[in-house]
């Protein structure tokens, strides 16, 4: 029951979030196409988990039906080009070759959609039919001469199965390429200047400078790209950390950012203190004299215990009404939960948990 409710609930969440965000998109002057991309991207990511058959996923039976339709509609018009071709030359030979060819194509499409349909089911069928009509029209009007055009049309269609999704993405790399090209062009002019002014040693320098500059810029782009990839995720993680008591409750080894900062500080401090107290402290660089050195704060001891908590992939997120304890028996009354167990999501309105410690 609760299992089958998940797709429904997720569909409603996606829908409601998109509807609620519509105003924010409009107010921000952002193209609503971006909102649609958000919805599709989100749905696609959820579908890729293969947890459930989500409502936006194509139903296996319906895909089969919609595929059967184009085959029929395509198969019927095939005889039509025959007379128009037939008037020109050998009717039987010219007619017999395109006939099976198109039928073969139609079958190919019939088998292809199930694969593509996962991503954008509503878009795959229609353009395909349109492509086919275009191919038919070309064949009718121009006969055999249109063969190359049709091939082009069909290969083009195969390359871009989901126009709505695929369109925006290529833009990004395209723009990037231009940027790089521009950068590459600019310095070649620079490089040509020294040549004109007959400096025999200048050209090499400019080239090296240019290479260094390009390498530097690429490094900057790569660095920032990585950072911007995780912009919001980092923000969310940070806010989640603050929810857990400002990160105080995180296991020591999870303080990656803090830990990565510490060695530098520690080293610099250690360096300065060493320089001051070098005379007698040469032997115990690693030992902190003020440390209690108890077994209890041995980091090795913490590791196996704390790691356990970090590596849990089964997570329940919920609210609680009541948490009670009598001796070592715990009873929790939980509400509005989302649970992920063994890569399968569950939702519940009320949850009753009983544990013993």
């Amino acid at each position: 029951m609760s299992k089958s409710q998940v797709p429904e609930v997720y569909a409603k969440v996606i829908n409601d979030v998109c509807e609620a965000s519509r105003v924010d998109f409009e107010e921000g002057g952002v193209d609503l196409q971006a909102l649609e991309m958000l919805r599709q991207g989100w749905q696609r990511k959820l579908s890729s988990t293969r947890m459930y058959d989500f409502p936006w996923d194509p139903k296996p039976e319906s895909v089969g039906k919609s595929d059967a339709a184009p085959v029929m509609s395509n198969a019927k018009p095939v005889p039509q080009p025959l007379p128009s071709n037939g008037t020109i030359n050998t009717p039987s030979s010219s007619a017999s070759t395109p006939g099976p060819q198109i039928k073969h194509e139609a079958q190919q499409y019939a088998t292809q959609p199930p694969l593509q349909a996962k991503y954008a089911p509503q878009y795959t069928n229609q353009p395909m039919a349109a492509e086919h009509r275009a191919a038919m029209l070309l064949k009718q009007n121009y006969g055999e001469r249109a063969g190359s055009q049709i091939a082009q049309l069909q290969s083009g269609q195969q390359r871009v199965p989901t126009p709505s999704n695929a369109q925006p993405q290529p833009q990004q790399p395209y723009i990037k390429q231009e940027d790089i090209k521009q950068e590459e062009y600019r310095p070649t002019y620079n490089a040509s200047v020294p040549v004109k002014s007959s400096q025999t040693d200048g050209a090499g320098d400019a080239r090296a400078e240019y290479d260094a500059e390009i390498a530097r810029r690429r490094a900057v782009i790569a660095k920032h790209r990585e950072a911007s990839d995780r912009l919001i995720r980092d923000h969310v993680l940070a806010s989640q950390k603050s929810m857990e008591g400002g990160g105080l409750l995180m296991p020591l080894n999870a303080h990656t950012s803090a830990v990565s900062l510490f060695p530098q500080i520690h080293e610099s401090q250690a360096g300065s203190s060493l320089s001051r107290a070098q005379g007698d402290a040469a032997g115990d660089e690693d030992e902190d004299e003020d440390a209690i050195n108890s077994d209890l704060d041995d980091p090795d001891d913490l590791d196996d215990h704390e790691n356990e908590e970090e590596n849990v992939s089964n997570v329940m997120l919920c609210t609680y009404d009541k948490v009670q304890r009598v001796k070592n028996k715990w009873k929790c009354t939980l509400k509005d939960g989302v649970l992920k167990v063994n890569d399968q999501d569950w939702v519940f309105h009320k949850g009753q948990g009983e544990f013993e410690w």
Partner: protein
Amino acid sequence: MATQTPQYYELYRGSTIGEHLIDTIDELINQSRIEPQLAMKILNNFDKTIADVLGEKVKTRLTFKGHLETYRFCDDVWTFLVKDVKFKTENSTEFHADKVKIVSCNAKRPGEPENK
């Protein structure tokens, strides 16, 4: 209630659906399609929406038993690490997990009236 709008927990952003939303938003920001400010608004909408949907649309009950390994209560948030958990839904579907981490916020949100 009239003076203070109820706040929504950001808790559910860590769920499967929340994480996929965040990834999608990050992609859109990376493609310069949306601004981070708008992204924060979307996430706020998500916080509200998922709380509402879970509260209104979901009617199922779930019971579970297990061995409590760790418990912690801080800033009104309970965190449990439970081992060897047996779940049971109301139509007596059962499933098992070796380890489950439970993060639970107070059902009475700050700014919400007491009567809930």
